[in-house]
């Protein structure tokens, strides 16, 4: 690593990261295999602290090492003064994120898996048009810094992106999402069967009045609550005082049924890794315990700005400096079964998924979403699909009173594990 040596002679602190990945994608459009793609990426990102100032640069040109060195030193010459220290060698937790079953999965097998996913969905809904992207890859991150950290690990991400639409006249159902893992899961078709069940359920329609009622969020629907929560827990929003949770560690902000953990040490999950992208060892970071705020997610820079330690949440793409981001965000399961939750609702709304996630002033805790797929619950049963429904509110009010959190939970959108969450009393707006 000659760049490290060259820069160590000229700056107090140096970090050199090499990223190498190869991703193979098979794409289905309108239920048919349409294309396939191989993406190979190799690049270097460098940071230095020189005269107390932080600089950054990156390159994918292996022959341009001189330019990389010049660029990062110039960046530091005009950089911000940030009191961060690159970490020395740290022991990492054992975590499995590489699986040859994935890295050596033949492209033909990806094509077959696509067919296996289409089958149960098309059986329920022959008119459905399905777009699928199946991706398997190998990514390797190597990091060295002047403090002696030498990290090198591989991951084997596997993901399935889907969009299913069924249009009959004015009646439209659109389901989309993504499944992700880093070790082979034998039940990789489970989600396709769940989607088929949803499409079956959506064939019956129901009407729902506007007004206040209990609302049951399925794991995917619970992202309505999860997205503002994650924004509020992000160390950058805490440092800039935009998060309503800033300065409130130790306070009970939510119902005791709410516990939130960031955990990169779970085997095989999409966001898992032994270290973060700055060489900080991962650990299980409890942020909310039984409703009480314990802490946030930080990278090195926001931690230094805030006078705390990095929580191992430095996340980067090649051409941007790191920023804090959750790894695997887990909202802990509760002790009520889903069946009991539904059985206990006289009249209510079941939110399967929502549209427009992340729009609006998310950091403030506010959300306002129209719903993609939602059902009416009546007399303790799901009775049919309801359309043109929207919900709005603020998590800092609503999550103070949670009726129940389910035992069951699901991994959704790569790296969120969410249970079913029942809010006892929420305003629901419908066309009726």
């Amino acid at each position, binding site marked *: 690593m000659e760049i490290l040596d060259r820069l160590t002679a000229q700056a107090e602190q140096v970090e050199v990261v090499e990223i190498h990945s190869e991703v193979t994608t098979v794409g289905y459009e309108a239920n048919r295999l349409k294309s396939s793609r*191989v993406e190979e990426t190799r690049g270097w990102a460098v940071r230095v602290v020189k005269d107390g100032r932080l600089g*950054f*640069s990156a*390159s994918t040109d292996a022959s341009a090492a001189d330019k990389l060195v010049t660029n990062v030193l*110039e960046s530091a010459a*005009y950089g911000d003064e940030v009191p961060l220290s690159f970490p020395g060698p740290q022991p990492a937790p054992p975590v499995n994120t590489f699986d040859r079953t994935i890295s050596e999965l033949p492209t033909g097998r990806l094509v077959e898996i696509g067919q296996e996913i289409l089958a149960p969905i098309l059986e329920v809904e022959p008119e459905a048009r399905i777009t699928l992207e199946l991706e398997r890859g190998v990514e390797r991150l190597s990091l060295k810094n002047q403090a002696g950290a030498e990290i090198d690990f591989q991951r084997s991400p596997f993901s399935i992106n889907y969009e299913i639409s069924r249009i009959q006249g004015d009646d439209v159902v659109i389901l989309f999402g993504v499944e992700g893992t880093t070790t082979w899961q034998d039940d990789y078709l489970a989600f396709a069967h769940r989607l088929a069940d949803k499409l079956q359920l959506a064939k019956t329609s129901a009407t729902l009045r506007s007004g206040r009622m209990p609302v049951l969020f399925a794991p995917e629907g619970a992202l309505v609550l999860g997205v503002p929560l994650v924004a509020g827990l992000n160390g950058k929003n805490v440092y800039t005082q935009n998060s309503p949770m800033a300065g409130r560690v130790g306070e009970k902000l939510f119902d005791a049924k709410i516990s939130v953990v960031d955990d990169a040490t779970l085997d095989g999950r999409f966001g898992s890794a032994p270290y973060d992208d700055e060489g900080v060892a991962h650990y299980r970071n409890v942020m909310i315990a039984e409703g009480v705020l314990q802490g946030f997610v930080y990278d090195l820079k926001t931690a230094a700005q805030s006078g705390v330690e990095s929580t191992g949440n430095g996340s980067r793409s090649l051409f941007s*400096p790191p920023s804090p981001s959750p790894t695997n965000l887990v909202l802990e399961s509760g002790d009520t079964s889903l069946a009991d939750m539904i059985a206990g609702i006289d009249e209510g709304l079941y939110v399967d998924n929502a549209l427009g996630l992340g729009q609006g002033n998310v950091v403030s805790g506010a959300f306002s979403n129209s719903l993609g797929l939602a059902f009416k619950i009546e007399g303790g049963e799901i009775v049919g699909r309801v359309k043109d429904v929207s919900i709005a509110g603020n998590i800092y009010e609503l999550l103070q009173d949670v009726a129940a959190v389910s035992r069951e939970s699901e991994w959704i959108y790569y790296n969120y594990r969410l249970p079913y969450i029942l809010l006892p009393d929420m305003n629901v707006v419908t066309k009726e």
Partner: protein
Amino acid sequence: MRQKIRDAIKRSKADYTEIRLEDREATNVIFRGKDLETADAVVDSGGIVRCLVRSGGWGVVTFNDRDDLQSKVGQAYECARLAQSEEPIELAPIPVSEDHLPVHLEHDFRQVPLSEKKGLAEGYNQIILGHSDRIVDSMTRYHDAFSRVISANSEGTFIEEERPMITAYVVARARQGENVQQAFESRSAQTGIDFVQGLEELAVTVAQRAVDLLDAETVVGGRYPVILNPGLAGVFAHEAFGHLSESDFVYENPKAQEMMVLGRRFGQDILTIFDDGSVPGARGTHKYDDEGTPSDRTDLVKDGVLVGRLHSRETAAKMGEPPTGNARATGYRYPPIVRMTNTAIEQGQTSFEEMIGDIKLGVYACNMFGGQTALENFSFSSAYAYMIRDGQVAELVKDVILAGNLFTTLAHIDAVGDDFEWSIAAGSCGKGQGGLPVAMGAPHIRIQDVVIGGK
């Protein structure tokens, strides 16, 4: 490199092969509040090979290591063979082009030191933060990029092109208690650094607007005659109408074909909407698209009637229409797909005074804040807006959201202004592959009977 590319293509077993190599250098400076987030320069070099097997499908390989192009072509060919197409995929014919397109910038940003670029963003940032004690947050950004792109295909096309881009953003956030308001502007073009110098007044405008919005009342919801300023009218043309004109949306979707059948009347005779990739210096301009098709103007709506749509070579062949030069890619990591370039509503004959004169109560909506379109339904929020009272622009209002059905709304455009301008903002289109530079243009337009959300 030229010979290596030609050799690799020559040995390809695919029915069609194209190679695109890109070398890009970019500088980025971001201030957020009082902090500098970054001031850096990066180098991105890579390439893409795309192969078509007519009875199969498309195979794509992207890479940073360009030493062995021939093996990349082989890999892409194998990818293309994987699919099985029921009917052969055809490409509409285009002329073979050999061209070299160097750029000479009078104020070349590559010659300007990073300190000066940082100084620009910092200067604007200080203006915003210092404007009022009600300004609580800011974001200013300077960005430049210079790309060298080589595109070649198995039909003999070989184009070497240079693409510069300069961009500045200024954002101000004002706050009073729970009331937080934001204002922003941007400037961007394919030109030199002088384009983003001297924007001090713009920084003041943005800061003042954020402060003014704190005192603005929320608009009273209802149906109004609405005048869109050129900034908003242009985005409306792009978002609400332009995306439906992209043939990849139509070509395999019978329902969409019915909706977008050529000859259908969409508006009054005064309405003409077009896409033009040949406007000098604009964000979305290129002499050739990323398949090597020459760019030109394509009329989409002419005198109120749908007359055309945007194509790649594949969609053009499939629909039996000529290719339009709209196959564009967001850099070497992506294959080209159907995208807009510079999209606009053509200049009309009504002056702003005439347009506003007979509006007793209406809304003057300016620039775009955000929005969502779902087929023919759209919902846009304007960045700022004023009430119109008795033919005059009156008080500033906030939270103006225009919603409705595209076709009804287009039919309700009853005046098109004589003050056409191309937007010089940093227009970016996020379809599929993330931000691709585009531009929008329009004069003021008036729409009758628009539903405005509000309290």
